[in-house]
């Protein structure tokens, strides 16, 4: 028996889940590796954002409860730690993918490298220019967190080819 109706129509145009790609930059959050990547990313982002936001509020309101040095030291440690966690988990996720999915992820990273840094640099400039009274230099690396949404966008765009 030749089945053409059973799976030709739904599978011809069925692609990877849009929401998982755009939200998390993964093909599926239902696989154990995808789920783990999302969990780790959330933990890492929280680890990075909490001290950064506290520092921002502290500086912006000219408060003096905690010394600037303490904040900057915490952020200096949190930043590489958070990104290391994401990178480590992403490496595991990438290795769990099949060849087409790996190719798409790597291609998305390449395009992110080309375009994301430009975007991050522009946002850094706007940030520094618009908030001159805040010592915003410490916040600049946080803009690089935007590389993730850029990668997600590229992943979505590239996956449309298939």
């Amino acid at each position, binding site marked *: *028996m030749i089945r053409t109706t*059973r*799976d030709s129509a739904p599978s011809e145009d069925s*692609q990877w889940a849009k929401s998982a790609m755009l939200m998390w930059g993964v093909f599926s959050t239902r696989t154990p590796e995808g789920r783990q990547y999302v969990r780790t990313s959330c933990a890492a982002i929280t680890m990075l954002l909490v001290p950064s936001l506290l520092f921002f509020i502290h500086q912006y309101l000219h408060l003096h409860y905690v010394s600037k040095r303490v904040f900057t030291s915490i952020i200096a440690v949190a930043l590489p730690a958070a990104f290391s966690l994401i990178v480590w988990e992403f490496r595991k996720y990438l290795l769990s993918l099949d*060849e087409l*999915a790996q190719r798409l992820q790597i291609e998305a990273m390449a395009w992110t490298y080309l375009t994301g840094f430009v975007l991050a640099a522009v946002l850094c400039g706007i940030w520094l220019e618009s908030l001159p009274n805040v010592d915003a230099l410490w916040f600049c690396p946080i803009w690089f967190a935007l590389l993730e949404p850029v990668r997600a966008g590229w992943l979505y765009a590239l996956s449309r080819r298939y």
Partner: protein
Amino acid sequence: MMKNELRVLRAKHDLTQAELADKLGVSRQTVNAIETGKYDPSLPLAFKIAGVFGEPIEKIFLLDDGSRP
């Protein structure tokens, strides 16, 4: 890009894309992309496909002009 007989063979063997993907250890999207000629599989995957259908690789994959490699 190469042409292939994957859709015909899959139908002959009464397999869905998901079932074939399971046998090959890839995603259904990958099987779909190969079938529709949007993605050329790696050599190991091409051999796996040939193994699943019990056909020589050159019977499944054809060069773009329709000739056998």
